[in-house]
């Protein structure tokens, strides 16, 4: 699994440079990398810690979505 993870992580930085100035792709690659990190960090955590992480992530997402609702005018 480590090899797979290394391969996956090595692919992410390649997305941006393929098309110079392709900011959206870079942002998406960063978001995907963050998801990988999040999943990877579950290993070794207790169930309570995983649930606490889920709570924190859900709170952050809610905040972003409420900001987006304001930006989009309700």
């Amino acid at each position, binding site marked *: 699994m480590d090899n797979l993870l290394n391969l996956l992580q090595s692919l992410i930085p390649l*997305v941006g440079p393929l098309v110079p100035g392709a900011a*959206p792709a870079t942002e998406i690659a960063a978001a*995907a990398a963050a998801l990988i990190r999040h999943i990877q960090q579950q290993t070794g955590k207790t169930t309570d810690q*995983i649930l606490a992480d889920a709570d924190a992530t*859900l709170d952050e997402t809610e905040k*972003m*979505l409420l900001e*987006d*609702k304001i930006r*989009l005018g309700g």
Partner: protein
Amino acid sequence: MKSKAVLTGLLLLLVFTSFSFKCDSGGGVTDPYRKAAKAADDIAASLNTMTKIKRDLGTSGKLSPDRERALTDLLLKANTADKAFVAQIKKLKADPNPATKATLCSLFGTVSSTLTDLNNNGILPIDNADSKSKLTTVFNTITAASGIIASVGLCN
């Protein structure tokens, strides 16, 4: 070229995520709630990723304001449902009893329903193929996590 690379990366992400469901480390003793907790956390992380991608597509003009608004509302519903589900896993873990378990199963039904709605009314109607493909790939991660929750037997 760019789309292919993004798609390849995200597909590999899905494969890796599927692997993570099968690796139940970090406790030694089998915890009946661990897989559900991990899957609920994966759903939370995927909704977070999808929100960031949606925001990026919206601000770069690849998603119309109307479409982004619809996705925002549907993501918020799914996020709220997962939040209630996580809270109920905590309750059930602290005090396992049939009533708490029944509520958990009902909340899982709500999570599933909001995810179906997110796909049918948020992602599938998107016209831009590239935007739809990116969001669909992350959504597949959510579907896999949802399938894990259904298979762990908490609601049998």
